[in-house]
């Protein structure tokens, strides 16, 4: 779609002079619209377009490919560059157990992801334990226990109204056993809910987890930057996870969240079963966002 439009715009340019302000303006308007319809944040789309314009202007139009293709390549490459690296590993070194906090807005897919990650870590030789740190959502603990069973991973749970206590006790138990990775499944919360955000800060301050993974729904729209910024400011997030990418949402949120936090996208969840967890591939994602 976008590629065809750009090809058309630049059809007349082949072999002549430079890519200029005039001919790029039309192309960039198309690109901007594509990005907005793909749920890239307005401000992030703006910066992206400016960066592309800068790179494209003054480029001599090569004779080997069409100008349209050249501009497309600049756009694609810039998007891949911004989306970041593939296969950024989890930091699991240091004194065991390595701790991973899973955080994010309500319903984004944290509990499902935590169980998938646990299964994957177990398959790679680690001894993970899941911690049921969501004491609010009805049957959240049961949900995690069932998923833990499916993944053959133990789940730490405790009847306690103090989430920090639960996490602290889970760590103590892990240290007394051969568990070497602890995954905290926390309750979904709004970034504007100070009390709930403070709960996360308290856990983070005391336990100092090596990884804090911000799990976002792949279909999220313009609000992605608000949530991502707030969670990152509070917890210095170490990685981003995008879920439900087996849907048909374009996933522009990936670019938005990555741009405003600067943090690496570590996993893509693309299905409800425990096998559906993949590493992030910026090339594939760029194609998806650009449509």
């Amino acid at each position, binding site marked *: 779609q976008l590629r065809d439009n750009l090809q058309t715009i630049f059809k007349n340019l082949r072999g002549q002079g430079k890519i200029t302000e005039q001919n790029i303006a039309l192309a960039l308007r198309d690109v901007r*619209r594509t990005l*907005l*319809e*793909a*749920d890239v*944040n*307005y*401000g992030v789309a703006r910066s992206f377009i400016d960066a592309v314009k800068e790179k494209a202007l003054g480029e001599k139009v090569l004779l080997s490919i069409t100008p349209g293709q050249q501009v497309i390549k600049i756009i694609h490459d810039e998007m891949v560059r911004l989306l970041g690296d593939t296969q950024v590993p989890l930091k699991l070194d240091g004194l065991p157990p390595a701790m991973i906090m899973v955080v994010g*807005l*309500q*319903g*984004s*897919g944290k509990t499902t992801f935590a169980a998938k990650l646990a299964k994957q870590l177990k398959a790679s030789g680690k001894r993970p334990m899941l911690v049921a740190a969501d004491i*609010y*959502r*009805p*049957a*959240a603990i*049961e*949900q995690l226990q*069932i*998923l833990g069973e*499916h993944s053959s991973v133990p789940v730490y749970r405790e009847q306690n109204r103090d989430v920090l206590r639960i996490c602290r006790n889970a760590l103590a138990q892990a240290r007394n056993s051969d568990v070497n990775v602890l995954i905290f499944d926390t309750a979904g919360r*709004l*970034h*504007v809910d100070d009390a709930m955000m403070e709960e996360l800060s308290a856990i983070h301050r005391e336990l100092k987890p090596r990884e804090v993974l911000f799990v976002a*729904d792949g*279909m*999220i*729209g*313009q*609000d*992605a930057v*608000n*949530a991502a910024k707030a969670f990152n400011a509070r917890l210095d997030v170490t990685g981003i996870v995008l879920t*439900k990418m*087996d*849907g*048909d*949402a*374009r996933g*522009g*949120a990936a670019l938005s969240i990555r741009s405003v936090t600067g943090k690496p996208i570590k996993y893509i969840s693309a299905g*409800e079963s425990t096998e559906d967890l993949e590493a992030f591939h910026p090339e594939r994602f760029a194609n998806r966002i650009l449509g």
Partner: protein
Amino acid sequence: FGLGMKIDSGLLERIEAFLYESDLGTAVTELILDEIEKESRKKLLLNEADIRELMLRLFGEMFKDDELSIPLEQNQPCVVLVVGVNGAGKTTTIGKLASHYSASGKKVLIIAADTYRAAAIEQLDIWAQRAGVEIIKNLEAKNPSGIVYDGIQAGISRNADLILIDTAGRLHNKAHLMQELDKIRRVIAKVIPDAPHETLLVLDGSIGQNSLVQAREFSKVTPVSGLIVTKLDGTAKGGSMIAIRKELHIPVKFIGLGEKLGDLLPFSPAMFVNALFG
């Protein structure tokens, strides 16, 4: 946007950013910008109040004949099918709806037809208890059609006024899941021929342009008669509900403003505009 600003490209750009950032999408944003430009030709200076007024008028016009209520005035149970993608807030919303209608004296019955997700039935059961309503569930059930069939029969024999059916979250691009939904709808119609009387699509208010795709695709399988937009107690504005109303003429019936039983409000365009400028 400042008092009495002349509409120039700088201000229009800021307004455009504001509209896009509310997830209104291209079609609705362009419609509003057109209206603003027309307005600015009549009246050289526009301030925030004028823009707000203009949007209230536009949306008020768009939503004006919307039927917000659920058809409860019949001598048989009103069957409400609740659908939507994963994590949108269906189960929680059913708890809220049950409480809302039960408080106004209606006999409500909940059917736990999400036979798939871990602890989905337990979650709904807790909501039923909180709302003080009965629930039809079967922890051994492997597919939803059977429990839906039994549940509606039970609703009829117990003289329920309202039957709320919770279904598993499903992505609209999964053909087998949409087929399952079609089957559920047909099973419902087998028991009560003109049911479901209401099919509510629950949308997460923070989702972007995919909401419109969800509304389109779900409508192909079950005639969606109303939307419930959840999680508007955060910073998301839920603008895609306007795009859906404009293109598919589906009214927003309720909005979800939190995780507690009482956090459900009947929708109004004024509520949307105020939240937008809020």
